[in-house]
């Protein structure tokens, strides 16, 4: 099985780290992984995105133009990437942060009140984990416990942040039935 995902949003929303945590988890699970960021000045406040591929077999191109799943954290990302979801694929977006929702009918559209939930959790920085939770539940591309292990790796020096991030993941997962 191969999952070709794109995470997109404003710089600072944690889109690059969502992809990285997924890639870590995939590696822990023994899968092939590839994480390709958009890089450069756009990382600082503009739009940022990363492609993350998790696969049971070797990954050919790290650059792709159509995705199994797009996770969009802002309006420009929804506008830009809605058309790049493969037929039957998923578009997960932060519905608390978007005026014009996606309209395609040949893909699964999953609104998540990400920003709202993050405010409820009293830390807007966990928006990305809420969205990643929904992504995991929908795609099953890695096991949740491996995401937990990946968080331990990523938050090596900030272990106290892990419980909150796990809580955020769980909130996100509850959006997908």
């Amino acid at each position, binding site marked *: 099985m191969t999952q070709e995902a794109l995470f997109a949003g404003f710089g600072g929303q944690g889109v690059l780290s969502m992809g990285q945590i997924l890639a870590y988890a995939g590696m822990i699970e023994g899968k092939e992984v590839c994480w*390709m960021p958009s890089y*450069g000045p756009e990382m600082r406040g503009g739009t940022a995105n990363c492609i993350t591929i998790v696969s049971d077999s070797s990954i050919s191109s790290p650059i792709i*133009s159509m995705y199994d799943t797009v996770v969009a954290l802002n309006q420009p990302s929804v506008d830009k990437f809605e058309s790049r979801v493969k037929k039957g694929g998923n578009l997960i977006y932060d519905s608390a942060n978007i005026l014009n929702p996606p309209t395609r009918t040949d893909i699964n559209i999953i609104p998540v009140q990400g920003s709202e939930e993050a405010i409820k959790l009293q830390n807007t920085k966990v928006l990305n984990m809420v969205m990643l939770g929904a992504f995991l539940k929908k795609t099953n591309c890695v096991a949740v416990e491996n995401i937990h292990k990946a968080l331990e790796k990523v938050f090596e020096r900030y272990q106290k942040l892990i419980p909150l991030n796990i809580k955020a993941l769980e909130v996100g997962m509850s959006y997908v039935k």
Partner: protein
Amino acid sequence: MGEIKLMKGNEALAEAMIRAGCDAYFGYPITPQSEVLEYLSKDATQRTGMVVLQAESEVAAINMIYGAAGSGRRVMTTSSSPGISLMQEGLSYIASAELPCVLANVVRGGPGLGTIQPSQADYFQAVKGGGHGDYRLIVLAPSSVQEMVDFVRLSFDLAEKYRNPVMILADGAIGQMMEKVELFDQMPRKTEFPDWATTGKPKDKERRYITSLHIQPEKMEEINKHLQAKYKQIEDAEVRYEAFNLEDAEYILTGYGLGARICRKAMDILREKGYKVGLIRPITLFPFPKKVYESVAGKVKGILDVEMNAGQMVEDVKLSVCGKTRVEYYGRMGGMIPSPEEIVENFEKLFIKGEA
């Protein structure tokens, strides 16, 4: 099995440098490869005692490389396109004086200051010379983060075997992306140095000197002949490439580095569509794998060369097939990356629908 890590290409390259027993790194920051110097600055010196020095310019860095390489040490520098241009004079001296060293070019889009996005537009510079005079670099083109690791060690070995500079020609995407890598174990740093190295005149022998100056043209021609003989030897012994599905191929996609990965995906899509497509991926750009192209020349209906430049390697592909097979080029420039779908579309346009 070695240690497995998830690493960025640039960081993996730096880690491999430390583990390969590199004695000194001299470099200057430039996007998209600054992570190399940053990574080494953390604790490379504490780990192995290697020298890590931020030079005042790429010009200074390559000349520090000259001095340290001339001291018989394992030395390496990295940069990106504009910085590599600044190093060309030094590289010409290094090639002429036959000093082993490794450099990596994490290529960005040009010409000029260009863009920091990935590109392959420095193929000619790397493969055909770049600096003045008749010289060659051994050029390796990694297409994964794993190869950023593996090629560092290979490059040091080749550099020392042939007393020749070796370039790892990557691109911004391979430098920036993260993949799973298996790291080799820490190798010891060298404690013995070659006879030609300037380590202080031996007591019972003549003093050594390293130079690229030979005023008498007869002598300079001799030096050139020696270099050309060495390059021939490298062409005979060090060609590396990967090939996929050549057995039944009617068409060939070809590309290197990141381009080859994208071509692999395009090949898979084309095969699903029923076209018998193979792939040739040169790993060494010099020496160029001419023979594998020769072997398909006249047998396949067409070769599509894909590059992130205006078509540079395609000239070597054409020279290799020598007119026996139609060779077309498709590529993007200035930091744009072709998608597999684009390659598929252009393949069909050029070879199937005959719109060439």
